[in-house]
């Protein structure tokens, strides 16, 4: 049903076969140029340019990552802060373009990278549902159809027409999560978003993600610092350290090794 409601990108493919590759990363590297000094000024820039003093320090955020995620897989990504997990997710979500290597994805991607991106807090929740929905690629008819469903799941009913700046961060997260998961996406990217909202809503989110997983329609990429949660939800995992792949395999193996490396 969502297929016609959700416009596909030109690269996407609508034919499904079992165990199809949903995400294929080949030798993906990401290099950031860190300027030695901040140059936000035309004059400075041209002086440096003329003097040939424009030096950049290169920072490799990801080094030759290759990864294949098949349809229905639930892949956890673990690693310490700054290891490149979010960069990887952003490349898969199509927000960042890799410096080298290729990243191919299929189908609809629902990025739960940072909940509430694209909300305007001066607007009411009702208005934001349409705004955010349009940014996620939903059509007007689709939002109209599922509007009640979104509101019901987020449980913010009575505050629906209040400007969102008056909302608590938990309520914002509820709405964002509800909008993003109202479809059955082909790929769901979850980046520590479950750490917001109260306990009950966290459980509800996890239940919804489980539901999506069990439908076997959705491929899930899951990033969390909560190793127990990764073990509970994921089937496979990849461990990234300083931008390099340290290990790839079943969740149990990877999480075990990850734990050992940190001495507990």
């Amino acid at each position, binding site marked *: 049903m969502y297929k016609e409601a959700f416009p596909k990108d030109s690269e996407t493919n609508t034919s499904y076969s079992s165990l199809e590759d949903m995400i294929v990363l080949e030798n993906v590297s990401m290099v950031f140029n860190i300027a030695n000094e901040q140059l936000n000024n035309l004059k400075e*820039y041209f002086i440096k340019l003329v003097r040939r003093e424009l030096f950049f320090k290169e920072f490799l955020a990801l080094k030759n990552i290759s990864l294949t995620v098949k349809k229905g897989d639930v892949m956890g990504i673990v690693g310490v802060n700054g290891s490149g997990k979010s960069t990887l997710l952003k490349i898969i979500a199509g927000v960042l*373009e890799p410096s080298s290597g290729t990243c191919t994805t299929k189908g609809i991607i629902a990025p739960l990278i940072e909940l509430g991106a694209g909300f305007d807090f001066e607007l009411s929740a009702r208005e934001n549902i349409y*705004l955010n929905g349009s940014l996620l690629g939903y059509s007007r008819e689709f939002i109209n159809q599922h509007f009640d469903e979104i509101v019901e799941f987020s449980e913010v009913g009575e505050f629906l027409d209040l400007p969102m700046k008056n909302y608590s961060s938990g309520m914002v997260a509820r709405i964002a999560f509800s909008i993003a998961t109202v479809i059955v996406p082909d790929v769901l990217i979850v980046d520590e978003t479950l750490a917001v909202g109260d306990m009950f809503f966290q459980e509800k989110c996890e239940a919804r993600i489980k539901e999506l997983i069990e439908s076997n329609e959705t491929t899930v990429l899951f990033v969390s610092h909560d190793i127990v949660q990764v073990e509970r939800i994921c089937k496979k995992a990849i461990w990234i350290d300083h931008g390099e792949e340290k290990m790839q395999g079943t969740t149990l193996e990877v999480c075990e090794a990850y734990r050992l490396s940190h001495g507990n």
Partner: protein
Amino acid sequence: MALTANTSLKKDLFILRQLISKDFKLKYRRSVLGIIWSVLNPLLMMLVINAVFSFIFRFDIVNFPVYLILGLTLFNLMANSTSAAVTSIIGAASLIKKIRVNKLLFPIETVLFELVNYGLSLIAVAAVMIFWANPTIVPTLNLLFLPLLLVYMVIFCTGLSLLLSSLAVFFRDVIHLWNVVIIAWTYVTPLFYPIDLLAPWMKAIMQFNPMYHFVTYLREIALWGNNPGLMENLICLGMALLTFAVGLLVFKRTERKFILYV
């Protein structure tokens, strides 16, 4: 292939509509007169400038209030849309960093939003033409050229907006610089004074000012009831397309790096 391109366009159009309606709601939220300001603003501005130029500097222009408001509103369409567009990419930073979205939409949205505002200010223009004109202006069929002029304007403003919004990502100086450029441009465009006042060499240079052509085009069709002619149409279209091409080229070549600088 054609089908998928179509749906992607549909998606972008829906985003555009949402962004424009958002801007509209926010612009007039908590103001008593609300949307009436879009009409009142050009009217009041015209009154102020009209007062200045009727008492202090006097030009021999028939129907000066009409002459003034036609030029002012059209110039403001360009000035407002480009001034807003300069920061459109920077302002959408949180979105660009998190969601895959066609970045072209942001500068385009500012232009279309101002176009809607311009549409509303036409009410003020019409009011001045009906109640202020002495001698009375009889609208001619040439007024039907207005949509065509607006197409030129939108192409032109979009081109400028694409250029400015992408440059501003890398050099924030552009934001400040553009304010000054707009002020200078206001004075080098014959908005308050007649072109005949200028020395011949100035008139020659004026030919390179796109806003001069657009404003004159509008006065020809709305005030003087003349047919703009093929040549003038070609000049306006040419300037618009050239600006658009440059803007689009710069934008497309730099948009991949936006996320690293916003």
